[in-house]
């Protein structure tokens, strides 16, 4: 109970604070850099920048068919664990209560059986993603410690959450505390590693969308 109180108390407050601090630090640090102003005339009939940015954000959700030939696994598996994480994080009632305590809004959840199933699928998908990273020559070459740490800190909350539900390992309150602590670790690492893509994808796609939109080029 002490560990659980620590996890729900100081650990959670600290890690959410680090999360907020880091996210703003990184976003502001990048956005406050000077931008080249583009004085070239836009292609005739091109959309305004904001529209190009939004279009790119959506357009990039699905790869061109030609890139799916080799990238089908990466894409589908990526969708599976992102979808799974989304369902587990946002539709498990205890998680909704956590989010409600932070943001004051709530929504209906799903039955636990569904969550457990999706959680297991997510864990499996993450394991497959890791296996692929460890075996593909391209991924082996370009992967950094950041990638493995980000993987681990995503996997741990899923694994500890499933273990707590299934009463595997230590006593429930200890497992629950470990689950919350693993989320704390996730939150602390989030802004500093590639987990930050959850925010950056908007900027990254948007920026390219603006560049391409200005030129009348297709993304």
């Amino acid at each position, binding site marked *: 109970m002490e560990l659980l109180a620590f996890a729900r108390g100081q650990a959670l407050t*600290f890690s959410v604070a680090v999360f907020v601090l880091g996210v703003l*630090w990184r976003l502001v640090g990048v956005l406050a850099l000077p931008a080249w102003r583009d004085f070239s005339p836009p292609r005739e009939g091109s959309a305004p920048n904001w529209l190009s940015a939004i279009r790119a954000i959506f357009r990039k959700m699905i790869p061109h068919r030609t890139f799916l030939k080799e990238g089908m696994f990466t894409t589908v598996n990526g969708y599976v664990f992102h979808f799974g994480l989304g369902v587990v994080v946002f539709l498990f009632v205890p998680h909704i209560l956590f989010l409600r305590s932070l943001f004051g809004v709530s929504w209906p959840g799903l039955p636990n059986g569904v969550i457990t199933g999706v959680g297991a699928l997510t864990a499996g998908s993450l394991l497959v993603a890791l296996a692929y990273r460890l075996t593909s020559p391209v991924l082996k070459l370009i992967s950094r410690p950041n990638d493995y740490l980000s993987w681990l800190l995503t996997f741990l909350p899923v694994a500890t959450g499933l273990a707590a539900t299934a009463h595997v390992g230590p006593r429930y309150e200890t497992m629950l505390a470990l689950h919350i602590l693993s989320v704390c670790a996730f939150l602390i690492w989030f802004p500093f590693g590639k987990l930050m893509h959850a925010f950056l994808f908007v900027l990254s796609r948007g920026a390219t969308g603006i560049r391409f939109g200005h030129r009348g080029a297709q993304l």
Partner: protein
Amino acid sequence: MKHDDNLAGEMQRRGVSRRAFLKFGSYVASLMALPPSAAEALAEGLAAARRQSVIWLSFQECTGCTESLTRSYAPTLENLIFDFISLDYHETLMAVSGEAAEKAREAAMAANRGKYIVVVDGSVPMKDGGVYATIGGRTNHQILEDTVKDAFAVVAVGTCAAFGGLPRANPNPTGAVPISTLVGGKPLINISGCPPIPEAMTGALAYVLSFGKLPELDHLGRPKAFFGETIHDRCYRRPFYERGEFADGFDDAGARQGFCLYKVGCKGPVTYNSCATMKWNGGVSFPIQSGHGCLGCSEPDFWDQGGFYRPLSTPLGAMGPALAGAALAGAALGVGAALSARSHQKSYLASAEKEKE
């Protein structure tokens, strides 16, 4: 009171049959999830035992534990347990008072050196020399040390004795501590709960009496037989939890349909006790059945878990100020980093211009 006779003889004189002994034995055995063969062993053990001297000390407490024990709706059991033991000292229950009462305690200690059991309810204040609770001019701490010295075992009854309970709740003005921190190496059983389930108290005592040793305990010193599973795992409302059907308040449709009380702060998932199986008042009900979430009263620090109505999965602290500070600091660091990068670029541009000339 005669102490040299065994219980069987004494009971027989009072008209308690051997059959009643066996019945009690099997009741306790089943309560504590012992194998069937233990029922007889328990009965035999009890029969052969001498009447056990018990000294009951009450410190910083509310007498709820005693109330719970004496108002047990298992009269046979209650009668039996009080027949089995010689309750030589109990402020609330004994007839004598003042010096005579303390004398009785001392006499019992002297007569049963090394054999008596000390039952404690209530925590012990340690701050300021323990002045916050004294009896006859002696602090609880002194009385406890004195009494425990020659005891066979100590039973901490109730969450105050087991874990400090309400007196120890933040900010703990009296410096209250649980009994476990003061009894040195003496065998100790914690029967936590606010109050504990009566059968947990009597069952544990009966076990000690029959087998002359402590029952199997969990990492918090509680008998596994009564504290081995969570309320949540044995809760009759569990199916609603699994289906995602919850009461959002105490008078909404969900509450009326008896849905799970997780959202209104039930601590069942992390509370180890037998309420959901043994229930209270002779098996009539328990808090969740009567529509209120579990408070987690048998767990350490249950007062300080951020409120009884705060769901288990929510943070304990108020995050607002920390987050506002973090947001400001983060934005400032971001601007600082960008400025440093800009000045880096500027100094390069200047040197590049120079090269051009």
